[in-house]
């Protein structure tokens, strides 16, 4: 019985210890009996990295941080065990950064060209580059530092807001309210205008649509005309029309030529008329001035009176002749 107790207790202890140790090693991803490539990197500061932090190459876990120790000149040397099949990038550097918002860190091995142009990172890599087998490294700011920066920014914003609050007095508030009200009215008007313009646009669209439809109809008519022309061509109607048009043009040219002749004759007649008018004007001037027989006749009232007297005497003579024809007329045949 005592031996049985010893065996059972011993077996339980062995199994328990074996299970606990095996589970721990499995969770720790310990590699026994497998060669690992050891790479060392130099950093100014390792941030939140600790032993066991994963090492990542191109996003794939390739190893872990095995050890860290303080080095000379305030550097930290981190020793990483890597999968021997993992190829390091050309001119490799190591960046320590948080892999999530929850305090997880990782070491990323990448090419120096892929680091980017962050001046702080570039400076860290420059400081830790000393050649040899030790890779240069840099540490990206963690969330706490970023949060601290954000906190400072928030403080600045609060300060600005406070100043704005000081500048934003009651008068400014009233002005702002008035501006808002005006803006509201303006927006109402604008909305109404837009509505009207929209209606106009709708009407214009309808008109355009109607125009387009008319064009379509015209095009159809034109097509019909073209078809008719096309069909008429075969019956010689077009030729006749063209011939008629040519004849009409020829007649027009003849008429035009005649018109040109008439125009020239009119020009000549105009010259003659102008000469006639000048002569007439000269005659009229002479008449008005009382020169010549006609001038005297027109301007001298004596002639008029003599003539009037003659006419009156002739009238009396005629009346006497009618009354006493035998006194004046003696008709004898033989």
């Amino acid at each position: 019985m005592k031996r049985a107790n010893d065996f059972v207790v011993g077996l339980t202890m062995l199994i328990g210890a074996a299970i606990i140790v095996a589970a721990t090693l499995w969770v720790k991803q310990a590699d026994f009996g497998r060669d690992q490539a050891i790479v060392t990197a130099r950093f100014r500061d390792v941030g939140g990295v600790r032993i066991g932090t994963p090492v990542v190459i191109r996003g794939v876990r390739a190893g872990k941080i095995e050890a860290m120790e303080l080095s000379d000149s305030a550097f930290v040397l981190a020793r990483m065990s890597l999968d021997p099949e993992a190829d390091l990038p050309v001119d490799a550097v190591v960046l320590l950064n948080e892999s999530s918002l929850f305090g997880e860190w990782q070491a990323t091995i990448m090419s120096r060209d892929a680091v980017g142009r962050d001046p702080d990172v570039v400076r860290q890599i420059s400081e830790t580059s000393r050649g040899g087998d030790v890779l240069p490294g840099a540490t990206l700011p963690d969330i706490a530092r970023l949060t601290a920066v954000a906190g400072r920014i928030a403080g600045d914003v609060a300060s600005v807001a406070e100043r704005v609050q000081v500048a934003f007095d009651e008068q400014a508030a009233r002005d702002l309210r008035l501006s808002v009200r005006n803006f509201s009215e303006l927006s109402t008007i604008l909305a109404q205008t837009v509505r009207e313009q929209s209606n106009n646009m709708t009407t214009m669209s309808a008109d355009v649509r109607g125009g387009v439809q008319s064009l379509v109809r015209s095009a159809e008519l034109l097509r019909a005309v073209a078809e008719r022309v096309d069909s008429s061509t075969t019956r010689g109607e077009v030729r006749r029309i063209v011939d008629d048009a040519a004849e009409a043009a020829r007649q027009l040219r003849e008429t035009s030529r005649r018109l040109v002749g008439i125009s020239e004759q009119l020009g000549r007649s105009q010259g003659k008329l102008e000469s006639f008018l000048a002569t007439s004007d000269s005659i009229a001037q002479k008449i008005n001035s009382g020169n010549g027989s006609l001038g005297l006749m027109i301007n001298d009232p004596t002639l008029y009176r003599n003539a009037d007297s003659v006419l009156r005497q002739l009238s009396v003579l005629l009346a006497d002749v009618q009354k006493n024809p035998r006194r004046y007329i003696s008709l004898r045949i033989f």
Partner: protein
Amino acid sequence: MTAAQGITSLGRWGRERVEGMGRSGRFIGYTLVGARDVSTWWPQTTLHARELGVRSLPIAMYIALFTGIVLSLLASYSFTGAVPLYFVGTLVEKTITMELAPVLTGLALAGRVGANIAAELGTMRVTEQVDALETLAYDPYAYLVVPRVLSGTIMFPVVVGLAMVVGILAGWMASIALLGISSEEFLKGLRLFFTTFDVRYGLVKSASFGTAVTWIGCMQGLSARGGAQGVGQAATSAVVYSAVMILILDAFWAVVWLLGRTP
């Protein structure tokens, strides 16, 4: 009540408290003295180790199984919004390993082991078997107390260690089956903040629990007076004091080992 009687009552209360501390100290001292008698306690150790440890495995596994399942569900219930679900693995690992497996197993074993020891030794006390041992020149501390305390100290970490494994496995399975978390995600969270310190912390704490539970059970059992009533009272006291001591030690180790420590 006169002033003199009041002062006397206060003095009696103080003396009883100091007497209790003195009895405990004297008990520890006798136990350490008895530990020197290896030939007496060594043959008894595996017997008690089997009784206290091996036979406690089923109840410990049962508790760990359901604790792991409930913990994973509780974690997924709590981790809404920005917290990724793979942290279920982290929470299950940390909580099971460092707290729930040692404490819940310790409390369960306080009921089973502490009451068992107190009842057994109390019965021996009230039936004068302990007096008989002394008459036969056996040191009752070397024969009765040391092997039990040693067995509890050794076997509690074994039981708790297996409870850790079972609890995490249960949480893992529950996460896959009930929460839709992939095995890779759970393992990612499990490994994220895992350190061997977590296991060491839980095992050392459970060893202290084992020492405390067995020692309190022995002390209460050997202090039993009267008949069966005294034995029952001793068993009850053993369970209560063991539970209280487990929680005190839990806080003690947290303050001593976790305070100011970075992972």
